[in-house]
Structure formats: C-alpha cells, structure tokens
C-alpha cells in the first residue's frame, strides 16, 4: 500500500499508470520554468509544479496531469496553467480513452495572479470542450494540500471526482476564510471541522465526489479505471438534472450549519461516528444515505 496523500506528483503517476508507460511532455529537462518567480526572487521548479503526459491505464490510452502540492501548494501560474490547457486540448486531437487530472492546488499562484486566474479559466473551457467531444475527464483528489480555488471549480466541471477521506475539495481555503472573516466564521486550526466540511467523506455524502477510496495509490488507480467508461453528458437535460439536484441540496440543507446536521438529515445514525470510520466501514454505513 502506497499512501497517495504522502506521495509526490511523480510518485502518484508512477503508481497509477502501467509501469513505464508515462511519456512526459515538456519534461524537467526542457526547463520551461516560470519567468515571473525569478523576478520576485522566488525559486522556480523545472516542471513548474505540474507533470503532463501520455500513459496507459490497464492498457487503455490516457492523458494525465499531476499537480505537485509541495511546490507552492500546487498553485497555478502561467506555465503551469498552459501545460494543463495544452494537455486537455491535445485530447481533442489524439482522442484518448480519458483524461486524468491528479489535482493538488491551493488555486491561483499569487506571484503571477492575473496569469494564473486567466489560465484557470482557459483550463475550465478546455475541460468542457474535451467533455463535449465525448472524452471523459476524471479528477483524483487525495493530496496533502487538497484542491481549492479555481482548481476546486475545475474539479467539479469534470465527469467524476475520486477522493480519499484525506482529500479536500472546496473553493476558499479555511485559512483564507478565517483570515478574512474571522475565526468565528471558520476555525482553520480545528482540523476535525475542516475535514468534515471539505474532506472526502462529506464530499462523497453530498455527491460531489463520485467515488471514495482508501488512501492508497492502487485504490485510486482502480477507481479511475472504473470511471473511464463514463460517457460525458453536457446536454441541456444533463444540466437541468444537475440544476434540480443542486436545488434540492439547497432546499434540504440550506439551513444546516455543520456537516453533522447534514449527515443527520441524510438519515445517518450517530453521524458523529462517521469521521473515525475506516473507508470500508464508512461506505457500508452510508451506502443508501447519500444526497
């Protein structure tokens, strides 16, 4: 068992794909680094914090991108974002069986904030173009830094999100909310609160994550493989169905102030027990209780 949470972006890819099948595009030897970091006296990385390439998953052809949270929290800068956009657009030409995004990002990289923000919107449009062309885009989210900011939106544009309970998915990070709105709004040091708000279990219960897996690279691999046959549907009726589901979420849980309230309303007995359950026990406990 290899912990996905602890692994690096490259380590995750090595464990996820068929051995030796990854061909990296613009690898570190190309030294396509961020020029903006240098200007601000900040160290750059040779891959600008993202690995993109082609590989195989159980023999099936996939394009992959993996963000490295250890480098600037996986934040998106000009080069980083352009690599991701280019990879997605490559799928339009090469038509793989799917695109896998191993997200780990705090959002936009402040050192190049404007470039990063625009880049994320380009990624968003590219994701939707790939899906509209019938190729599924699958997100894997289980890294140390979670997935926030623009990448939190990107993740929910895709066909499915695979999470471990350690994974986090949201828009504004708890620290950002605490800094801006005060500790009463969101105590970012209360990690139990953080995880039951944006962690994998809650996201799975809400339906934001399609699959919840153990913190194990091979579990992520199996889940990604199972989702490759997903047929993207970006039609009006699909979006109307999503609209209805989001309406129902607002209606059922709009007045909830804590995940425990939501879980209770979902009919989970002893909701306070959920955080401590192992993934298998958790899945068995909540199997017919998801929103």
């Amino acid at each position, binding site marked *: 068992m290899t912990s996905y949470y602890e692994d690096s972006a*490259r380590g995750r890819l090595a464990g996820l794909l068929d051995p030796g099948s990854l061909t990296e595009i613009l690898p*570190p*030897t190309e030294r396509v680094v961020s020029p903006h970091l240098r200007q601000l*006296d900040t160290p750059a*990385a*040779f891959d600008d914090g993202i690995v993109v390439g082609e590989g195989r998953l159980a023999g099936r052809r996939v394009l992959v991108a993996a963000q490295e949270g*250890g*480098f600037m929290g996986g934040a998106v800068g000009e080069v980083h974002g352009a690599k991701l956009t280019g990879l997605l657009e490559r799928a339009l030409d090469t038509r793989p069986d799917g695109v896998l995004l191993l997200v780990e990002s705090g959002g936009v990289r402040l050192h190049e904030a404007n470039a990063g923000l625009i880049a994320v919107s380009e990624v968003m449009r590219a994701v939707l173009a790939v899906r509209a062309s019938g190729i599924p885009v699958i997100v894997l989210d289980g890294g140390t830094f979670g997935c926030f900011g623009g990448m939190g939106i990107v993740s929910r544009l895709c066909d499915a999100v695979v999470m471990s309970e350690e994974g986090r998915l949201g828009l504004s990070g708890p620290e950002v909310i605490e800094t801006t709105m005060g500790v009463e709004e969101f105590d970012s040091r209360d990690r139990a609160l953080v995880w039951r708000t944006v962690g994998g279990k809650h996201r799975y219960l809400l339906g934001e994550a399609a699959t919840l897996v153990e913190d194990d690279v091979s579990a992520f691999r199996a889940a990604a493989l199972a989702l490759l046959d997903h047929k993207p549907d970006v039609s009006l009726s699909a979006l109307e169905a999503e609209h209805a589901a989001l309406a129902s979420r607002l209606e059922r849980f709009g007045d909830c102030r804590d995940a425990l309230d939501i879980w209770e309303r979902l009919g989970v007995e002893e909701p306070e027990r959920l955080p401590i359950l192992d993934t298998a026990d958790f899945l068995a406990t909540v199997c017919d209780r998801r929103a």
Partner: protein
Amino acid sequence: MEILTYEYRGGRPVASPPPSVLVGVVGSGNLEVLVEPAPLGGLCRVEVQTAAVGFGATWQAVLDDVFARHPLADVRISINDVGATPAVVGLRLDQALDAFAGGAQP
C-alpha cells in the same frame, strides 16, 4: 536568490546513462535535483539556484563530498533549492546520482 556554479574534474562518465533523473520537490526545506548527461569534456558541473543566500562555502563542502562519493564526468547537475539543510541536500544528491549511475529512473 543566489546562483552558484561548481565544477569537478577527474570523474568517470557513466557508460549508458539514462536521459535524465529528477529527485525531490522544490518545497520549503527541500530541493529538486536534475541530473543529465552532457558533453562537458570530462567535467561534472553543478548549478545551484537557492533561496538561502550566503551559503556558498557550505555548498562547496557538501558538493566536494558528494563528488568524492560519486566521481562522475560529463554530467550536468541542476538544483533548485528552498533552504534544504546539507543533510537533505546530500541525501537527494545520493538518491539522484545512485539512480543516474544505475541507469534506471527511480
């Protein structure tokens, strides 16, 4: 930021080197090490970009020992460092150069 360059002579080239080896991550207290074969006329060249300014002598001492352990020639070693301690620097370089000399990507 500081950019430091070191060169070593007297090493031996690796017979069939891999195209490149990358080890580590550019994160706080850590570094990435990129090792590539390069036609340097027998030199081993190390280029360091580091966020910790003023440690040139320390880098020299660490790299002297690394070269003594891994006397390689025609190798370009590129480092992006965010204030890693010499212990971590030595560890990453050992990992990278073992993999490079072994000819396999770790």
